């Protein structure tokens, strides 16, 4: 059977996942602030109200705690709800239902019930939006047992991981990034899913492993291309899922290359990069030819001014510099 693909943007890939899942399963509902408005959710929700009605596509008052809790309650009562937070920063109001209730619900009820809910948070940084319109909070959610956390880096994954998140019987935090919304990829028209908990090697290399997620996978691949003429052969691992981590894939790559650069769109302290660094240290330290390096946001709130933003967010240049420091001396470049 041939699979029909075509170029599709990341945001429309999400839209297609939602449309196809809502068509297939009448228990799927979307609830959150701004689902009526491209101002909030871009074109990810376009056409959904027209197709499925306001009973299943529910725009809400600004009440993140109750609306997220309602998504959980609806999921306990037989639905598969997706609670959307068009800016992840506002999702902190919903930390209680996500972490205290949804994450714990299966365990503290002895597995008698599970919560098939998706918490969809959009990272929406840049554009001089300052500290409360910019945050990448995936590490906070990854800390809590009972949650899964995914961060798609391509349009293909954006669709496949959204489908997998909706199909999963456990609470899944789906973190996407506005900076990716206009990127394109070959996306199958059919419904498919990308398995949660499995990463992928985006580019094979032998000198250094760059472990990245979300928009930084693209930056890492760019960095690899930049370094190619200098003879540095970079492997890029895309985590796809942040929790549970694909530890086997990370370790296999690092054991092959002997060097690890971990690139994370979040902060450094107690962050995702720290966790991956610990996993490598605990399991494969003997294979390392040089210290692990982290490329993360500094432990500083996001600034507004463009002059500071430029110095704050990570780009391929930062990744290139770090790899050069790490590998350049060894390879005498």
């Amino acid at each position, binding site marked *: 059977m041939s699979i029909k693909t075509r170029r599709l943007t990341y945001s429309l890939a999400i839209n297609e996942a939602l449309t196809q899942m809502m068509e297939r399963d009448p228990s799927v*509902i979307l*609830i959150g602030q701004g689902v009526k408005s491209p101002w909030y959710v871009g074109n990810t929700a376009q056409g959904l109200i027209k197709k499925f009605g306001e*009973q*299943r596509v*529910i725009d*809400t*008052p600004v*009440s993140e*705690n*109750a*609306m*997220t*809790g*309602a*998504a*959980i*309650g*609806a*999921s*306990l*009562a*037989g*639905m598969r*709800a997706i609670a959307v937070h068009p800016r992840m920063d506002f999702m902190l109001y919903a930390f*209680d*239902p996500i972490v*205290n*209730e949804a994450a714990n*619900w*299966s*365990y*503290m*009820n*002895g*597995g*008698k*019930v*599970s919560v098939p809910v998706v918490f969809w948070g959009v990272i929406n940084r840049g554009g001089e939006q300052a500290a409360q319109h910019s945050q990448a909070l995936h590490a906070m959610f990854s800390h809590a*047992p*009972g949650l*899964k956390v995914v961060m798609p880096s391509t349009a293909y994954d954006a669709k496949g991981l959204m489908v997998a998140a909706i199909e999963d*019987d*456990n609470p899944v935090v789906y973190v996407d990034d506005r900076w990716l919304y206009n990127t394109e990829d070959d996306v199958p028209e059919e419904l498919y899913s990308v398995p949660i908990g499995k990463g992928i090697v985006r580019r094979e290399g032998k000198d250094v492993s760059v472990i990245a997620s979300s928009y930084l996978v693209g930056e890492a691949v760019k960095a690899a291309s930049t370094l190619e003429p200098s003879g540095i052969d970079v492997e890029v691992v895309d985590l796809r899922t942040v929790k549970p981590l694909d530890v086997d894939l990370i370790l296999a790559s690092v054991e092959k290359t002997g060097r690890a650069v971990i690139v994370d769109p979040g902060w450094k302290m107690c962050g995702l990069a720290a966790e991956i660094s610990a996993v490598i240290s605990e399991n494969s330290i003997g294979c390392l030819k040089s210290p692990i390096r982290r490329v993360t946001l500094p432990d500083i709130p996001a600034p507004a001014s463009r002059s500071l933003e430029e110095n704050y967010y990570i780009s391929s240049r930062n990744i290139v510099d770090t790899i050069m420091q790490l590998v350049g001396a060894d390879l005498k470049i």
Partner: protein
Amino acid sequence: MKPDSNTVIDLYRTMVRIRVCEESFIAPILSREIRCPVHLCTGQEAVAAGVCAALEKEDYIFGNHRSHGHFLAKGGKMHEMVAEVFCRETGCSRGRGGSMHLVDPSIGMMGSAPIVAGTIPLALGAALAAKTRNDGRVAVSFFGDGATGEGVLCESLNFAALKKLPILFVCENNLYSTHLPIDEIRVSRKIFELGIPFGEQSHRVDGNDVLEVHGAARKAVDLCRKGRGPVFLECMTYRMHGHVGPDDNIQGSHTDIRPPAEIEKWRRKDPIKRIERHILKKRIASLRELKEIQAQAENEVLEAQDFARNSSFPKKEELSLYVYKN
């Protein structure tokens, strides 16, 4: 419409089962056989009994830290609840939750949790699911007066009214939020008025009068089923024990909270004694028949405790089960 005799006797039986079961926990708590925090609802039985008797098995309820009564009144099995309080593998939450996490989805008891107001939006969501499916189910959220300090209650009241959801908000106002008397947490004692600005039908009832609670709950459930919900019901009641465990929080004791005269005043309003007087006065049942119901409850509780004591604790190698559903 007045409830028929069978309903009155059922209400009585439910309240007695809750009371006897609650009181039976005191000795094993004191002997440290029970170690999880236990929030007894002695004195508040009429609320659980009156509301749950107005519901069908398929309707949803969500509780809080003080939910033994809700679980039993909705039809949960007593031996599974007692085993959970004893933290045994045979408990309703397999010993992973303890007294504060009671669940039985097969009878619509969807869970309970001690994060104050934490389950209010969950009940809201269950009502949203019922409305989306148009399946006629109703959801009930049980919470205490302490929960009125949480913002999520107001968020939930607003959304429920906005979408006309089939949900009954039941505030069990026992006048204390843990150690603080109600006058120290809010200006107005009239909690039911909270629902009014959001457009909810809001009422206050005598929460120690099971017939009044039941009547109000039936009306509210009926409105919800007809798409004319939500309804806010404040039930005035009192817990005869302290916030947690058998300590009664009497002034002069080390917890030093409640005036003895106040406790005595409420003892005279004991909801079980009140319905007993009603039953005898109206000749719905004889004293002998009521004694028989009490004896049955005592027997059931003894059997439930035997079951719990004879059940094993969860195996330590099964610590990691149930974090995720596979």
